[in-house]
Structure formats: structure tokens, C-alpha cells
């Protein structure tokens, strides 16, 4: 699903954010991307989302070389990816329902299809009773679940999460991770960037450890 071949990313001023990164993530696989703050996790995710282009090497997702995509093609690619942020990044002037419906409206789903999908996504994150609420009146955990519902509502083949449990207490973090595990069982490829050792150690998934822009470890179990 995701392939990194000798990927490097240099920013202006010759600061090297990523250097010779190689890995593959199979379809339906779930993996953690761990490392200290500033190690290069977010840069790697930005490359997968097509927000940055690699300085060298190839980033391939579902067979497409992302460096060749631009404009409408890149937008179409992003519609097949779900994204979860540390800050759920919700629109506070829209209801929970409309926030979750956003990717569907952007993708051009019909108005008859949208309610079914939003209802299903809300039920997956246990927020069926909050559809008409404003996100500003929800707790941090509930907001994060709205963000997750928005990321999965269009049934993406790939889900990318950047520190999804960063603002949550351990109990809520475990709940969010359980949701990711369920999505993975449904065949979604998931890459979760986190620096929380407890979260990573609690689940038996592959982990990619990145340090100073280099992939230093790639394997199962605790480091």
C-alpha cells in the first residue's frame, strides 16, 4: 500500500528532515511510526498525504508515485485517504453531522447517500446521539472521535493519524486505539505516528522507529 524507496527530504537551509528512508506497508496492515519530537514523523506523513514532495527517492501509495501527482489528480488521491490529527481540526460553526459529512461533500456523494454514511460513521465512534450538537460543546475525547468519524466516513483504503491520542487521557487513548484496530480488521491500512511509548507497547503491531530523519528500526514488539 505504502512504499518508501530511498526517500530523503531537505528543507531550505539544507536541513535534512528525512534521509534514505525505505519501508513498505502492505494493504490492510497497521503500523506505528514512533520517534522523538522533531525526528521526522510529521514530514513522513506529509509526504504520504502529498503535502510535500520528496527531495529524492520515491513515495508510492497504492501504486501511484506521489511526485507525479498534482492539481486535480492529487486532490482525487487525497479523497481516498483518511486523516486524523492530534487537534481534531473541526469546523466549530458546523454541526457534528456536517463536520463528518465534509469529505463526502468534497467527494461529490449524493445527498441521499450522505446521511447513511454519516450515521454509520457516528455509530462506529459511539456518537450517534451527538449528530446535531456543535463540536464546541463536546469534550476533547468526543471531538477526537468526531475527527476519526470524519476520517473513515468515506471508507478510505488508507488511514493516516498524526499523534491521535496526544491530547487524550490513557483511557480515551486506549479507546481510540481499539477503534483503529477495528478499522484495520475491516481491511484499512493504518499508519499511526505517535511518541507515546505506552500506546505503542499496548498493541501488537509493527513499529517503525525514526530518529533524526533516519529509519533506525522496523519490527514487531517493544523496542
Amino acid at each position, binding site marked *: 500500500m505504502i512504499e518508501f524507496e530511498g526517500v530523503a527530504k531537505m528543507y531550505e537551509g539544507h536541513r535534512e528532515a528525512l534521509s534514505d528512508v525505505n519501508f513498505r506497508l502492505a494493504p490492510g496492515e497497521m503500523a506505528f511510526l514512533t520517534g522523538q519530537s522533531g525526528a521526522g514523523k510529521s514530514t513522513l506523513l506529509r509526504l504520504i498525504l502529498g503535502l510535500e514532495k520528496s527531495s529524492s527517492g520515491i513515495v508510492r501509495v497504492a501504486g501511484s508515485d506521489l511526485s507525479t501527482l498534482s492539481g486535480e489528480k492529487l486532490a482525487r488521491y487525497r479523497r481516498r485517504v483518511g486523516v486524523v490529527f492530534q487537534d481534531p481540526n473541526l*469546523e466549530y460553526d458546523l454541526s457534528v453531522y456536517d463536520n463528518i459529512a465534509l*469529505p463526502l461533500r468534497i467527494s461529490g456523494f449524493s445527498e441521499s447517500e450522505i446521511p447513511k454514511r454519516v450515521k454509520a460513521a457516528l455509530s462506529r465512534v459511539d456518537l450517534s446521539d451527538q449528530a446535531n450538537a456543535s463540536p464546541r460543546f463536546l469534550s476533547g475525547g468526543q471531538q477526537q472521535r468526531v475527527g476519526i468519524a470524519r476520517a473513515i466516513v468515506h471508507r478510505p483504503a488508507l488511514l493516516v493519524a498524526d499523534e491521535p491520542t496526544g491530547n487524550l487521557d490513557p483511557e480515551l487513548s486506549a479507546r481510540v486505539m481499539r477503534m483503529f484496530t477495528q478499522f484495520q480488521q475491516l481491511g484499512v491500512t493504518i499508519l499511526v505516528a505517535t511518541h507515546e511509548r505506552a500506546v505503542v507497547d499496548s498493541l501488537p503491531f509493527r513499529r517503525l522507529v525514526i530518529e533524526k530523519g533516519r529509519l533506525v528500526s522496523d519490527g514487531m514488539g517493544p523496542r
Partner: protein
Amino acid sequence: MNRWLLDHSQAIKDAWKRTADRLTQFMVLVCLLGILLAIPGWLAQIWLSMSSLVPEEAVQSEAIVFLNKELDVEARIELERVLAEMEEIEQVIFVPKTIALRELSAQDGLGPITELQANNPLPDALRLKFSIRALKVIEDNILTTLLADKRVLSLRYYPSTRVRYASLVEKLGLLGIGLSGLAVLGVLMAVFLVAAADVVDDQRRIELYTLLGASKRFIRRPYLYRAIWLGILSGFIACLVITSLNELFSNLLNSNLKALDPSLEYLPVDDRTLIGVAIVALLASWIGAERAVSQRLKALD
């Protein structure tokens, strides 16, 4: 087609929501742009209504060209033909000396001078009516050429008010065009700056939409719909201001209008002005917003 409809209805909803969120700002902008656009519209209105009200002699110069007495018919016809073919001359009328004498007699109140008919001292003449667009310098050139022509005895020139005050009219015209240009530029700039500020305000939302797979066209559409509404409403306000000013001036000039034409109640409003103002409003708003949004989105990349 279905996707197109969905995208546009979504953009209209978004645009409406954003407009409703900032309704006061939007309405102030509509009024401001309407007043700005009324300036060129009102100037055009003055120009067009004046040209329909002002008497012909104020805009069209005339000249009476007295022909040499010995001039044969062929030479006279040839001169008439050459003059008639000139673009700057709208009309050439041959005035035979018999008619000239009769008119002169009637004008001077001397009664019929029948005894002079047999020995008419007047020459034949050509009456030239210059075109409404003829410039002063061209009229002067034609007159100089005619004076140098052996077929011409002398001439009398009656310059129009427009030609007599040519330099002043020219300055006023340039001032009007400059002012109109500035007003339209002002509209463009105002829409540009407001749209650019909106995009900066919405930066977080735009980044989110981009991540969710929205294309640039999708992101740009609501701003352009807002600009279209802005153009329509400000064009409407501008037309309202122009017709109101027209009404006001018509009341002020009522007695003068009646003197010009008893049936004239109001200064005529030219439809071309209103249509022109509406089109300029729509185009200026659209271009201003399109440029601003494209530039800001490019900068966000």
C-alpha cells in the same frame, strides 16, 4: 452533470453561509462599491443625456463658403463632391445666390428687393455642416485649404460651442474618464483586498479542505459566488444611485427642461448606462475576487 450540480449547490450553500456570517461587512461593501460605481455611471449618464438635450449648433460647427462669381457649374459640382466625401463634413448644401438674396431680404426685414434680383450682388455659396466628432484642428485645416482654393471667394465659420471650448471639453472628458477609471480600479482593489483577507481568515479551513481532497476549484467557488452576488447587488445600488441623482437633477432643472422641450419632465435615463454599470460591477467583482483567491491559494501552497 450531477457532480457539477452537487459541487455548485455546495458552493452556493458555503457562500451563503459565509455571507450570512459576515453580513454587515458584506452590506457595507455592497453600498461602498455601489456608490463608487455610480461615479462613472453618473458621468456617462450626464454625457449621454447632454448629447440628446444639447441643440445641434452646440456640437456641430458650420461654415458658409462663398464661391467665386465666375465659377462654372462643373467646377462648383466638383468642389461640392470633394467636400461631401470628407469624413469630417456631414452635409454640403448648395445655396444659390437667388435664395441667399431672398433669405437675406427676409432676415433684414427689408421686404422683397425685386429690383436687385436682376443684378444680384451676392455670390453662390456652399453651406457645410461639420460632423459631430470633427476635431477643432481638422475643422481649421479644412477652412485653411478652402481659403487657399481659387474657387472660393471667402467664407464664414460658425464654430460649435464644443469646438470653441474644445480644450475645456477635452480636459473635462479626460477628467471624467480618469475619474471613472479610478472608480472602477477602486472597486477592483476593494474586492481584491476583501477576498484576499477572507482567504487569509479561512486559511485553517482551506488547509483542512485541501487535506480532505478538495480541489482548488472547489475551494475557490464559494468566494467567486460571493463576488458574483457582490457585483449584482453593488450594480443594483449603483443603478439606484444614478436614477435617484437623475430624479434630483431633473427636479432642479425642471424649468430649463421645459424650455428645451415642453414635453420633457425628466432628464432621460439611458438604458445603456444602467446595463453598462451592471456589467462593469459584475466583471470587476469577479475579476477582483478571482485574482485575489488564486494568488492567496498559490501562496498557501
